[in-house]
């Protein structure tokens, strides 16, 4: 009895040792030299595999960084400057800083100001809806309200507001990956500079129709009157195709345009509310 046990243990140990040796030799023979920095960078990544950098996942991004030694072109928008600083450290490159970006919904056409003119009975998908017709409201440019953007957001930053019918983006959760920008068939969402303490000014409309037509379709539409462009002293606003656009690289957040807009299409967010007294003075 004892003999059998000893024999079994010996035979199995021998077999195990032999196989381990074969595995070791094979692994040596077929070893692929891989830059260890790829692993290091991958560990630094947020790991969302969102594709916001333009690569198919974090590993592909890390490989591209090491191969191209370029962190200007290969920039992880989700990790932001902090992560990229560490990546730069690994690669021995100078850190590149970019302004953090945030997704902004450029449509203010809530249900209350933009009446529906036809009833859409199809499946609840913006892409399907856009393939069937222009819109269920008189504005063929604005948000369709089926929430494709909320569906693709990996950070759970987008929630459809049932009251307005528009998506709302939680800027603290938004990673700026741009997945929603690609998902929106109408091109309503734009990645814009987050701004100091989140302060930013933007035109919340992309309606290219002439003023009266746009106004009739939606109470919050940009009518392309150009008042904002005249008021802007930084030359940041341009009106093309009957719609104003604020260049966020030029905007100095003076808010002069906000007061000028007759339809309230220009939104200023995260500005501190001034105490009433001060305002009166």
């Amino acid at each position, binding site marked *: 009895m004892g003999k059998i046990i000893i024999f079994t243990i010996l035979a199995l140990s021998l077999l195990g040792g032999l196989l381990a040796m074969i595995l070791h030799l094979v692994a040596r023979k077929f070893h692929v030299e891989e830059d260890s920095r790829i692993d290091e960078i991958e560990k630094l990544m947020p790991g969302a595999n969102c594709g916001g950098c333009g690569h198919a996942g974090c590993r592909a991004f890390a490989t591209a960084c090491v191969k191209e030694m370029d962190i200007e072109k290969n920039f992880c928008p989700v990790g932001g400057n902090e992560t990229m600083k560490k990546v730069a450290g690994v690669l021995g490159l100078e850190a590149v800083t970019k302004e953090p970006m945030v997704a902004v919904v450029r449509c203010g056409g809530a249900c209350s100001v933009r009446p529906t003119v036809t009833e859409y009975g199809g499946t609840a998908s913006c892409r399907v809806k856009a393939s069937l*017709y*222009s819109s269920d409201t008189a504005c063929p440019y604005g948000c369709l309200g089926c929430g494709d953007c909320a569906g693709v957001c990996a950070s759970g930053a987008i929630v459809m507001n049932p009251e307005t019918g528009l998506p709302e983006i939680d800027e603290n959760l938004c990673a700026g990956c741009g997945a929603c920008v690609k998902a929106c068939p109408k091109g309503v969402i734009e990645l814009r500079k987050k701004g100091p303490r989140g302060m930013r000014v933007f035109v919340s409309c992309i309606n290219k129709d002439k003023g009266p037509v746009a106004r009739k379709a939606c109470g919050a539409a940009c009518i392309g009157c150009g008042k904002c462009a005249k008021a802007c002293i930084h030359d940041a606003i341009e009106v093309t195709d009957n719609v104003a656009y604020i260049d966020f690289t030029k905007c100095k957040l003076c808010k002069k345009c906000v007061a000028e807009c007759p339809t309230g299409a220009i939104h200023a967010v995260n500005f501190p509310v001034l105490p009433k007294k001060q305002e009166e003075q």
Partner: protein
Amino acid sequence: MAKTFPIGGIHPADKKISRDSAIVALPLPPVVYISMCQHIGAPAVPVVTVGQKVRTGEVIAEPGGFVSAYIHSSVTGIVKSIAPRADITGKMVPHIEIETMPDEWVDTVDLSTKIACHIPDDPAAIVEAVKQAGVVGLGGATFPTHVKLTPPPGKVAEYLILNGTECEPYLTSDNRIMVERAEEIVVGAWIINRVLGKQCRCFIGIEENKPDAIEAIKKAIGRLNILSGGIYEIEVVALKKKYPQGGEKQLIRTITGREVKSMALPIDSGAVVQNVATALAVYEAVMKHKPLTTNTLTVTGDCLDDAFQRNYLFRIGTPISFVIDQIGGVPENAAKVISGGPMMGKAVSNLDATLVKGSSAILFLTESQTRRPKETVCIRCGKCADACPMGLEPFLLYRLANAANLEELEKYSVQDCIECGCCLYTCPAGLPLLDKIRLAKADVLGAIRSRKK
């Protein structure tokens, strides 16, 4: 025994309510808006100026590319504006607005109703006449006919199939023209046959639920053969009532027994399919020098009074709202207006949009007919795969489309989908199969095209 295609297909109730209503001319609208996008391909380019007087049948726009078509004025009047205007889907498309006056036809047009049957001998002259008349395929795709009549070098048409199936429920305009204008259609068919060459055999496929049309076409062939000494070798084929019997690939399979390969054109299998309405337009273009400015429109629906179930001869550019005025407004319990048939037609989101060359019907559906069943989950019953006339697996494609897996979608031939809607019609789970598959198909076709570049 009526012929049919071997796989898939569905049997919706045919509801040809307006089948016995003779074609009447729609009154002249006070103003027409003629769209520059009435065909597949590049939009036409306007050649008139604001304030100019145009006569009926005059060229108002020229082709904007190789696959494009001439557009003629359907009325006599003054050009009021050339501006973008919303079409039935709300898309802004350039339109020429013409304020109408009493008709004054262009001199070259022969307005007599006598059947002309001396077909010109020169195929090139026929194709040129078809091109000059702005004829496009009236079966739905509105592909410029002169392009289809010029097979690529090395390809020979052995079969010409005239599509008189009208397999969509409700539609009756093709049925009416076959009954009322059979001889013109037969001559038109023979004109097309002459262009395609002597080797080409000619068939007319008609679903067996239209016995009067089958009878009328057969009689017309007989009568024309007595007049001409038997040149019209056209065979009328009765087809089983099954949707989509009129699909180009299904029709070729049914009549010739040949398959059209994936991503191939019908001409690769030696077949050319033309709608009967196109044959009529070809007849008018070649024998009467009359451009395509009118077409037949079915106005129908369960909620429409029997007195208003009509087949109209309309002029292109007539606003849909004007047609609706003729039948006393939108019926009370109509919930949706469709341009075309219930299976492949498009919902009209804007009643001010105008009729185009390819318009075939204005259909009113009730609330209960338009309501979609609640979306639940796929139970793998396989009904959609049984119904698919292309032999695809819609449930699988739907799942792949949701995952945006283009490689697998291509492997499972999403690009062969003919968008007939049989899968959506049969799905007991109410899944938007076609909606998603159609988008996936567009993505895959885009990927294939960019790979070829």
